[in-house]
């Protein structure tokens, strides 16, 4: 049985070129020898591996050659040597252990699959493990656990959530589903609460505009929701039951099953969710703080590989979501004081085709995706009074919305011989929104067509340095009609803009990677998600309309980051420090113009505000001493600043009221962050402790019928969640996971909600749940 080493040796030295020198030596890591390390002559197929004692010995050509030594788990080392004919040279190597846990593959940074540690821009990835640990039922719940991201509910009547990335509100972040921008403006309003977490493989967050190729409106960044790609045949059914503050029940049922052909050339995943959440009233005024929600989602994702080099995939999703908030939810909406009732019927579908050449150096992709939403809405109510006019208005507050987003694109990627990568592509997007509420004479009829062409070159002149140059050329045509009451606005905009991007990364040492980048972005004037949302104040509705002659908004974003990763035996440490500076020119700013509508409704106008800048630092520290323990702490320290004082409320001259002027952004804390700690003592049991901190911030509250504001400084929140999980494996085909715990353990929750029919429904901030106990069960063939 001795020949075992010879076999290996034979296998590795299959080369018959002129070999005229002999190189030998040892490969060590510290005091320890490394057996079976590979020793190669760079640029050739000559090589050997070290024996059991870490020694090697092989023939090489004479002259100047570079030896590369690698071994699994160690960083490879190169050494240039010169050997003369017949020489017997001794070359020893010292290897250093490699960083583990960073070998994930991500797509958001360059739009091609790249190992996470090698991406030129920082990609934060939120995995199902964390979504599970935080008891996140939808994407909206789990996003807080990446640096710079804060998700907040912004309406007590409808539960409208917004992602705030690096302090910029929802409209500045591009949300993608499997790298496609199917989230239209309308879906952006409630969509994050409509994507269940059981279909998610990971959520990739890229801050700042480094990921230019996804779109020029990704000024704050992109959030890319990637759904699962199965290999095994699995199925699972799960259910969760939660009780919000001992008062309102939230229950859901989820399922998913995957079947992949034995040859892996085709497969399908089917999934579905049903959720029913009762409304919750925190201050017993009879008006909801958390809205009633019923959501049913079903979907399927299938793929087929006609041959080894091509793949076709299709996906179909249907979402039916009903939500209602306000008071007396048991009555028809027109008999209540305030009701916001929304019934969404959304269809999302898409198809992708990709083909590569034989050696995988060229890849071509063709894709189309569409989402279509049909929505019935009711934004209204009697508003506290019982006059004839109130009743007529309340009876006419029903509306309908139709919304289409259709994306078509092609992309070509070429991997060049020198490791450089060239990517180019084009995308044509159509987005049509029609929102009609006849009772208010409200109309949004907007069509946005955009054509984008992009090219990107990833230049890797050395192992350590990477530069990513990219440019995107967008032509956007907006054709919009906006009416509310007697006010009418139109938009007919044709805008072409170039958005160049540059990212540099440098591996300073084995542990330290430096990155820097610049990105230009722009947004053409149009109704974004927030502008489609209607809130209520003083018993009347508050509408947003675009002002005349809006200019496009431009941004310049700079980032620098420092990433330290080190692995010592089982210990893994990862530290990220990131600084960002984003300046906005003519930012779209919502200004309250007071009660200017005939029926007393408050009108807010989107205007080009004063130039502003957002700057600060994100940090994230991850430590895992061994696979049983994981700790992560992240946060953001930031400032926002208008160059000139910005008006937020324009007084109509009512005595005692004056213009409200701000110098920094509202609803942006100077400090916010998160933590998560996991203890996995065995495969059968684990405990997760997760939490978020929201620092002090300014939140505007409407205090009079004219829309006059009070700027309230609100206290910080610390929202801590605890979850315990028990796994029972009956056999390979049936497993059960039981879980239980509490969200917002310390009940750190807003305590100054506005009350009654005249309340300002937008005055809601901080953690989105009071103390909530939950239990869950999941069973099936889980893995």
């Amino acid at each position, binding site marked *: *049985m*001795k020949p*075992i080493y010879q*076999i290996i040796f*034979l296998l590795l030295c299959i080369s018959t070129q002129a070999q005229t020198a002999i190189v030998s030596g040892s490969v060590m890591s510290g005091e320890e020898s490394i057996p079976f390390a*590979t020793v190669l002559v760079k640029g050739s197929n000559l090589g050997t591996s070290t024996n059991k004692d870490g020694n090697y010995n092989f023939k090489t050509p004479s002259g100047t050659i570079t030896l590369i030594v690698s071994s*699994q788990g160690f960083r490879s080392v190169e050494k240039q040597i010169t050997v003369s004919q017949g020489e017997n040279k001794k070359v020893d190597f010292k290897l250093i252990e490699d960083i583990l846990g960073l070998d994930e593959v991500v797509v958001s940074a360059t739009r091609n699959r790249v190992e996470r540690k090698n991406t030129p821009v920082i990609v934060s990835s939120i995995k199902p493990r964390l979504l599970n640990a935080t008891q996140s039922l939808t994407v909206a719940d789990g996003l807080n656990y990446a640096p710079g991201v804060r998700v907040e509910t912004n309406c007590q009547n409808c539960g409208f959530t917004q992602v705030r990335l690096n302090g910029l509100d929802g409209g500045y972040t591009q949300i993608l589903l499997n790298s496609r921008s199917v989230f239209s403006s309308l879906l952006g309003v409630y969509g994050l609460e409509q994507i269940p977490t059981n279909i998610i493989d990971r959520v990739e967050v890229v801050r700042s505009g480094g990921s230019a190729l996804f779109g020029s409106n990704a000024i704050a960044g992109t959030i890319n929701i990637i759904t699962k790609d199965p*290999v095994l045949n699995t199925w699972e059914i799960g259910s969760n039951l939660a009780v919000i503050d001992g008062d309102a029940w939230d229950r859901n049922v989820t399922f998913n099953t995957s079947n992949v052909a034995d040859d892996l050339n085709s497969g399908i995943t089917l999934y579905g969710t049903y959720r029913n959440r009762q409304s919750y009233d925190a201050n017993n005024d009879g008006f909801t703080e958390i809205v009633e929600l019923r959501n049913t989602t079903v979907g399927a994702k299938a793929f087929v590989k006609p041959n080894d080099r091509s793949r076709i995939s299709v996906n179909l999703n249907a979402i039916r979501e009903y939500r209602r908030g306000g008071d007396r939810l048991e009555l028809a909406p027109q008999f209540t004081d305030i009701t916001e009732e929304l019934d969404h019927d959304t269809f999302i579908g898409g198809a992708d085709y990709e083909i590569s050449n034989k050696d995988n150096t060229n890849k071509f992709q063709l894709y189309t995706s569409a989402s279509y939403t049909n929505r019935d809405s009711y934004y209204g109510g009697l508003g506290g009074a019982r006059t004839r006019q109130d009743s007529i208005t309340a009876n006419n507050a029903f509306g309908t919305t139709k919304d289409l987003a259709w994306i078509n694109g092609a992309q070509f990627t070429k991997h060049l011989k020198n490791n450089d990568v060239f990517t180019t592509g084009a995308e044509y997007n159509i987005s049509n929104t029609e929102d009609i509420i006849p009772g208010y004479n409200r109309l949004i009829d907007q069509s946005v067509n955009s054509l984008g062409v992009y090219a990107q070159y990833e230049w890797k002149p050395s192992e350590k340095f990477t530069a990513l140059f990219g440019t995107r050329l967008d032509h956007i045509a907006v054709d919009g009609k906006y009416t509310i009451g007697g006010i009418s606005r139109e938009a007919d905009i044709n805008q072409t803009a170039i958005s160049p991007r540059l990212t540099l990364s440098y591996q300073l040492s084995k542990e330290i990677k430096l990155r820097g980048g610049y990105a230009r972005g722009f947004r053409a004037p149009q109704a974004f998600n927030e502008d489609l949302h209607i809130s209520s104040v003083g018993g009347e509705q508050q509408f947003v309309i675009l002002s005349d002659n809006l200019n496009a908004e431009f941004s310049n974003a700079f980032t620098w980051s420092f990433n330290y990763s080190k692995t010592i035996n089982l210990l893994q440490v990862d530290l990220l420090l990131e600084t960002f500076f984003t300046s906005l020119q003519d930012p779209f700013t919502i200004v309250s113009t007071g009660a200017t509508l005939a029926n007393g409704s408050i009108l807010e106008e989107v205007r080009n505000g004063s130039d502003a800048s957002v700057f600060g630092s994100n940090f994230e520290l991850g430590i895992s001493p061994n696979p049983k323990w994981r700790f992560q702490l992240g946060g953001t320290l930031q400032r926002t600043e208008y160059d000139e004082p910005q008006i937020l409320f324009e007084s109509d001259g009512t005595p005692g009221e004056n213009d409200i002027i701000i110098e920094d952004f509202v609803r942006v804390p100077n400090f916010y962050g998160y933590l998560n700690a996991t203890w996995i003592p065995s495969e059968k049991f684990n405990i997760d402790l997760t939490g978020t901190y929201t620092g002090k911030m300014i939140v505007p509250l409407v205090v009079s019928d004219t829309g006059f504001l009070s700027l309230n400084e609100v206290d910080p929140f610390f929202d801590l969640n605890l979850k315990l999980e028990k796994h029972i494996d009956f056999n390979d085909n049936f497993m059960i996971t039981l879980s239980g715990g509490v969200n917002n353990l310390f009940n750190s929750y807003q305590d100054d909600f506005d009350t009654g029919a005249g309340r300002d429904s937008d005055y809601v901030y901080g953690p989105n749940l009071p103390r909530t106990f939950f239990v869950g069960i999941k069973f099936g063939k889980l893995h």
Partner: protein
Amino acid sequence: MILKKITYILLFYLLPQSITAQQNSSINWITFQQLEDSLSVKPKKVFIDFYADWCIYCKKMEKVAFKNPKVISKLNTSYYAVKMNAESTDTIFFGGDTFINKQIGKKRNPTHDIPLLLASRNNKDFSLPAIIILDEKFKISARYFEYLDSKKMLKAINQSK
């Protein structure tokens, strides 16, 4: 020592009888220790499958190719089939040498010396799945580092002479 050998020889002749009955239902996987004894008695081709708990493609092969009746019968008749967890913590005596897992306590996924020795490649990291086929003289005739469906698996085990 002699007694031990006799036991093994006896076992070797006795075992096949008891196993033939279930030959078509599953592969007669053996360990490296058993392999040494078996080889010393009767040289035969060897099929080695390295797997790990996290390797989903290994699991898929377990469910597909290794459940295929043709694969099972071919492996049971023409090969000694060895299955080994690449992250095993066992000390294994084989061919007069002792093999251990040197990476325990140093790596998150510690790989045992035997898979490192047999399934390491020139300029690539160690990866799973890894299937090694050796001839009667215990010389490697083929190595596979990818998912093999039943068809490809059959081809692989029928191909090697």
